[in-house]
């Protein structure tokens, strides 16, 4: 059997979902028999070298680079999975959605109690930097997402079962304990 190609990305996330992938423990030895990794922080490929079968997205979209990256993944992956609460509903970064962007930047760079060195009152605004979005959006509001695995982080058993079922074409087991939102 040809090895399936997997790509992963962390957008506006904390890498906790990637850590949870590693939590499949010794099953990672079974996994590398079944798959090879392409563009991913796991192997540090910056660009796709070939189309991927499965793309795993952690985190929602909070800036233009996230949106660009997500679209890049959609173009190069046959199946795209939203992994974790941030990818599914924006998660913790989306807690800023109730606060105007100007107020967020002001607090972070000008008025916050820990701001000491920004004497000139500069806000980051360079064309080299990604533009921040007015609100954090879930991945499926930007591109089509095929599957969703909730959790913060998703349980390792859920990730393993989902990947194994996808790769081998079997039906997925969904025991009660693995679907959790926290």
């Amino acid at each position, binding site marked *: 059997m040809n090895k399936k190609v997997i790509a992963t990305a962390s957008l506006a996330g904390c890498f906790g979902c990637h850590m949870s992938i590693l939590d499949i423990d010794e099953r990672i030895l079974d996994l590398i028999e079944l798959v090879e990794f392409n563009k991913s922080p796991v192997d540090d490929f910056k660009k796709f070298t070939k189309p991927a079968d499965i793309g795993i997205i952690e985190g929602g979209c909070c800036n233009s680079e996230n949106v660009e990256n997500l679209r890049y993944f959609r173009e190069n992956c046959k199946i795209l999975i*939203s992994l974790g*609460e941030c990818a*599914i*509903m*924006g*998660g*913790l970064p*989306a*807690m800023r*959605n*109730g606060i105007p962007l100007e107020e967020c930047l002001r607090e972070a760079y000008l008025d916050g109690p820990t701001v000491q060195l920004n004497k000139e009152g500069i806000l980051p605004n360079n064309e080299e930097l990604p533009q921040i979005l007015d*609100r954090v959006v*879930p991945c*499926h*509001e930007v591109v089509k997402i095929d*599957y*969703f*695995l*909730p959790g*913060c982080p998703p349980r390792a058993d859920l990730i393993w079962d989902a990947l194994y079922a996808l790769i081998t074409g079997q039906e997925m087991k*969904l025991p*009660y*304990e693995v*679907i*959790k*939102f*926290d």
Partner: protein
Amino acid sequence: MENQIKIIIDGQEVLTEKGKTILEVARENNIFIPTLCHFMGADPKANCRVCTIKIHNRMMTSCTTPAADGMEIENNTPELNDIRKSIIELLFVSGNHFCPTCEKSGDCELQALAYRYQMMVPRFPYDFPQKKIDSSNPKILKEQNRCISCKRCIKTIKDEQGRHYFAFRNRGNKIEVVLDPDLGIEISDELALMAMKNCPVGSIIYKEKGFEKPIGTRKFDKTPIGS
């Protein structure tokens, strides 16, 4: 025997007495019907619609419909479960239900129903409302963006004279459940904790008591709601 009636729920014959609602009859016979706004001991309000059933092919709320002889009721069917799931999804997108940061996570009935119906993602776009959080009371924090306006706190939290601590403010989509600022100052610890417990979501938080139970020991961590 005059009082005895027979109803059929999902093909199962159930004997009961007149004067009970379908939900009460189902609970007595260990038949699960999901509820959110319903609270045992308080008058049913039927505003969450999650207990919807079908009687002779008509949608009704089981918490307010009295059981009558010969009723044929559909309950645990794919169609009804999908409708219930969509109601839960709508409640999720119309508030800010950030489960990872919520003090009530694991003990939340809305979340538990989402687990039971295996909600992986809501099929509706997120609203991200921007309602004010009321933290003026010394004991209770009222997070309006999590409130599902079920009225359970209004119905059950009263003082000895029967005065309500909580009330509705505004109407329509601006409706909010608020804590009476004057009466609320004197709320006892017992009642404040009861308010947090009776809230099906994490809208009423007893201050300085959040995240008490570790993950794995909370109410719905291992057992689904209604089992």
